[in-house]
């Protein structure tokens, strides 16, 4: 019975955000395009002109290098936002989870429903980047839809652990530091804009254990290559490990919060 109930929770989320949707969709479509124009073309013209450029980016132009990575960063942005303020809203301000708690829906289904909703939200974000990837001739290819699909677990790898954390919070004071000290540094140092080999050795392990770098590599390899089985499996394994751990943590913290 848990799947249909989860779908009802997802429906509720969808209905609630329906009004703000056009803005959300417009934002998630325009933001990657702005990044692509600003960074891909602007920075790209500096990078691509250099003699060693092709070697350091694995033979890719800067636009080819950057554009697929935005699938992963957009997923992270969407996932980490959805897991903070909107989740606390459900517990504290709007208290929709309290309202659901007295219906036959179990906390487990609330979590499942939210996972469905986050998936929806991440896919919307990916569509914007995906459209850009298809428009740009040098990134166009059959790998694009696969990379778009892979952006879902990347976004969930952020949404799930963060939501589990949010479920233990009484207020929003920890959210800006999370954004400032986790999400923004990962965005900048997670291999989206330049290879992490450019980073000091000491910083690289952060990229290796956090899901963004793996997501960036995965989306990039799937879109513009080269795709190697071993690396791909490792990337997928790390991302899925974060999703799975986050899912289990959500099941525990949501149940505790709802039933206290």
């Amino acid at each position, binding site marked *: 019975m848990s799947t249909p109930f989860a779908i009802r929770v997802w429906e509720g989320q969808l209905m609630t955000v329906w009004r703000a949707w056009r803005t959300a969709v417009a934002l998630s479509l325009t933001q990657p395009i702005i990044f692509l124009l600003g960074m891909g073309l602007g920075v790209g013209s500096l990078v691509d002109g250099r003699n060693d450029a092709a070697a350091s980016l694995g033979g890719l132009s800067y636009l080819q290098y950057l554009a697929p990575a935005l699938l992963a960063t957009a997923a992270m942005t969407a996932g980490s936002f959805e897991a903070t303020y909107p989740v606390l809203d459900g517990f504290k301000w709007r208290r929709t989870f309290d309202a659901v708690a007295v219906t036959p829906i179990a906390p487990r289904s609330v979590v499942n429903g939210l996972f469905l909703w986050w998936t929806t939200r991440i896919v919307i974000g990916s569509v914007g980047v995906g459209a850009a990837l298809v428009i740009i001739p040098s990134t166009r290819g059959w790998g694009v839809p696969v990379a778009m699909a892979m952006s879902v677990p990347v976004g969930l790898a952020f949404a799930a652990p963060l939501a589990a954390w949010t479920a233990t919070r009484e207020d929003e004071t920890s959210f800006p530091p999370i954004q400032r000290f986790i999400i923004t540094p990962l965005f900048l140092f997670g291999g989206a804009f330049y290879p992490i080999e450019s980073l000091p050795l000491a910083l690289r392990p952060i990229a290796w254990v956090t899901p963004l770098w793996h997501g960036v590599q995965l989306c990039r390899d799937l879109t513009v290559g080269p795709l190697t089985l071993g690396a791909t499996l490792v990337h997928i394994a790390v991302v899925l490990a974060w999703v799975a751990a986050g899912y289990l943590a959500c099941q525990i913290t949501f149940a505790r919060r709802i*039933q206290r």
Partner: protein
Amino acid sequence: MASAIASLAVPDPSHPPVIAARSITKRFGDFEAVRGIDFDVARGECFGFLGPNGAGKSSLMRMVSSVSPVTSGELHIFGMDPATNGPAIRARMGVVPQTDNLDQELTVEENLVIYGRYFDLARSQCRDRARELLDFVKLADRAGSRVEPLSGGMKRRLTIARSLMNRPELLLLDEPTTGLDPQARHVLWERLYQLKEQGVTLVLTTHYMDEAEQLCDRLVVMDHGLIVAGGTPRGLIDEHATREVLELRLAASDRSGVAQHIGDLAVRVEDLPDRVLVYTPDGDEALARLRAAGVHPLGSLVRRSSLEDVFLRLTGRTLTD
């Protein structure tokens, strides 16, 4: 005390109770919000929990609503254990929480439809019931408007309509009329009375004594996580208060001799900063005795004693929060 608890037995033993609680407790860390209470609620009755803030009423309601598990003790609702049959119990129950948790972003009707969907109702069925219930709570003309600008009374009525979407057999109401104006309270009471007529079992918490007297067949008074008295409203008044109360406003010099002047007619005298209350079987006669003794109150009022007197007697006059 023993007699109070005995009176909480279900009136008709041939029907199993809708709610049966045996020594249930609820602990949050070191704090014990509910400290072992017993009660039964029979089908079709209106049962009230009275108590000051912090008495444990809301914790109790959250346990009965099968959301918050009991720390210890036995709780059965519709004969089922919430720990193992939570969803099945909640499917047959409606809950009106203390603070409205309507979705402010949605319209009045959408709030009901979404909620009905949580009970596995088809969309068309949700819309039919929503229309029917909005009529019932007199909000039909606001079906399409957003929740946020509605008045407190309208939001409360909408929350009640929402709690009825699954046609519950048992309706739990946590302080249903707190913060409402008298008109809104009376409309709510009418609706609750109608529901009771239809056979819905009502369980409510309140700290309004008039509400408890109006609505409840039986009630218990809670204080510090325990049941301190229970019975019918009239029975509680008879047991814990006198028939009448004489309220006096007196010059400071007259205050001390009141009990003495009235003698055996003054069962209890309470000396408050603003007035003196005399609990007595005959208020007029007590007043006459006082005047005969040469005491002339600045003001006096003889009234029937109410549940409020019982409540204050049992739970004290000290502010609890």
